[in-house]
């Protein structure tokens, strides 16, 4: 489903940030993306959410060679990807509701459907009372939940998250991980960039994509227990 073969990335005429990245992520799998600071996690994520094009190598997503896609096809491809940015990137001039509804509006969904879906999801992430609030008046944790809700509202085929639990307390963090897990079970491929070793330990059944010195290696872990058991262990 996602295949990188000898992928390299450089910014302008600078050195290569990613030198030779090779991996394959099967559809419906769950991965943690980790590595030391400056290893290129954000750059790899930007390639995955199609914010950049690799400077060399083959990059295939959903069975398509990215280099061969035209502008319109790239747009449609992006609509199948949900992203939770580290700095959330919420639009502060519009309400929490409108922020979450934005991807659906871009896809041209009916307003009635949008209202139903967004209201349900906002209740689920504990923001039901804050639909009309502007994001910059909410706490960091609440903003993060809006960012996550916006990323998952379209039920994307690929979900990318950059430190999604960073500002959240354990309970909300686990609820979000549970949400990611549910999406994963419904067929969404999940890639979470994280420094949180405890989180990675708790959800150790998922494989790790480790980036180091511009190269990547995939470490597959054996499932030790079910997610429900792990969540239970945390309380």
């Amino acid at each position, binding site marked *: 489903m996602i295949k990188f073969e000898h992928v390299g990335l450089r910014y302008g005429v600078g050195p290569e940030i990613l030198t030779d990245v090779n991996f394959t992520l099967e559809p419906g799998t769950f991965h943690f993306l980790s590595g030391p600071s400056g290893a290129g996690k954000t750059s790899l994520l930007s390639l995955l*959410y*199609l*914010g*950049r*094009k690799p400077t060399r190598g083959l990059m295939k997503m959903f069975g398509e060679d990215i280099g061969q896609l035209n*502008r*319109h096809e*790239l*747009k*449609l*491809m*992006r*609509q*199948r*990807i949900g*992203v939770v940015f580290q700095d959330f*990137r919420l*639009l*502060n*001039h*519009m*309400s929490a*509701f*409108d922020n979450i509804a*934005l*991807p659906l*509006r*871009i*896809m041209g969904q009916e307003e009635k459907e949008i209202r139903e879906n967004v209201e349900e999801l906002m209740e689920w992430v504990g923001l039901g009372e804050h639909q*009309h*609030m*502007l994001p*910059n*008046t909410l706490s960091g944790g609440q903003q993060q939940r809006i960012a996550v809700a916006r990323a998952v509202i379209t039920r994307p085929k690929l979900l990318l998250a950059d430190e999604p639990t960073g500002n959240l307390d354990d309970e909300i963090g686990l609820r979000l991980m549970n949400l990611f897990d549910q999406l994963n079970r419904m067929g969404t491929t999940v890639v979470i960039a994280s420094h949180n070793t405890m989180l990675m330990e708790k959800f150790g059944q998922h494989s790790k994509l480790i980036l180091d010195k511009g190269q990547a290696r995939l470490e597959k872990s054996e499932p030790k227990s079910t997610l429900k058991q792990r969540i239970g262990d945390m309380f």
Partner: protein
Amino acid sequence: MKIFSKKDRRLGVAHGTRKYDLPLEKGNGGSFLKILMGLMTILAMFAFVASFALSAMTERWSAGLANQATVEIPAENAAGVLLSQEEINKTAQDILVFLQQNSAVETVTIMSEEEIQSLVSPWLGEDMEFNDLPLPGILSVGFKEGVAVDTKNLEKRLKNFGEPIRLDTHATWLANVLKFTSALNMAAMLITGLIGLATVIAAAGAVQSRMSMYRDELELLHLMGAADRYISRQLQRYTFISCFQGSAMGACLGFIILFITSLIFKEKEIALLPNFNMSLTEFLILCALPVLIALLGMITARQTVLRTLAKMP
């Protein structure tokens, strides 16, 4: 839809439904564009009114002098000897009879001494004593409409009554005036064109500044898979509304200025453009200016946005 109070807004509650995904209504850039469009509209209105007035003037002069000619009997003969008034009157009578027999001539009249004096008095002064001044004889000739007149041949035959006699069809004078007015008209159109160009540049500049101001938001929409048209539609709508609002205000102000100017002209009896009244079509063209300027702004916005978005991966 819920109605929120000012207090709610202070508390950070969104009011009403969103208009744009980009925060286009924030900042002063919109006001700047509106003021600029207002000024452009006023200037365009003046240029159009000047053009309308010149066209009306040219048309009136052309119509007034069409099929008209003047026969001039100079006060002195070919040898430079002054003719007496009786001699001039006799020649005028002979020419009158001659022209009345010409089938192309519809009307011919001899201008009285008083009429000729009133014609020359603006150049010589009202206090001039005309008794001592030799005045030429003048006949006003009106030709039949649609009949081709060989003026050269007619003038040749008129010279049989006296070598210095001239037939003036006003063609040279009219041609010069028409050249002058059409040059002024061209200048008015050129100014209108420059105003249009300035509108395009202003709209493109405003859109580019908005796009660079909200580059992060724009990139976010792009990464969510928003089509270029989806993004450009918002900036098009914003630009159209801003340009229209500014231009409509400019048009209102322009009409007020034109009205006051016409009142001052009437009050001071300045007859630069005698009896110039705008036709309904001309008035409608001025009324349509805000829509035209807004459309121009909108098209420019669309092109600017699409060109900028095309640079994104």
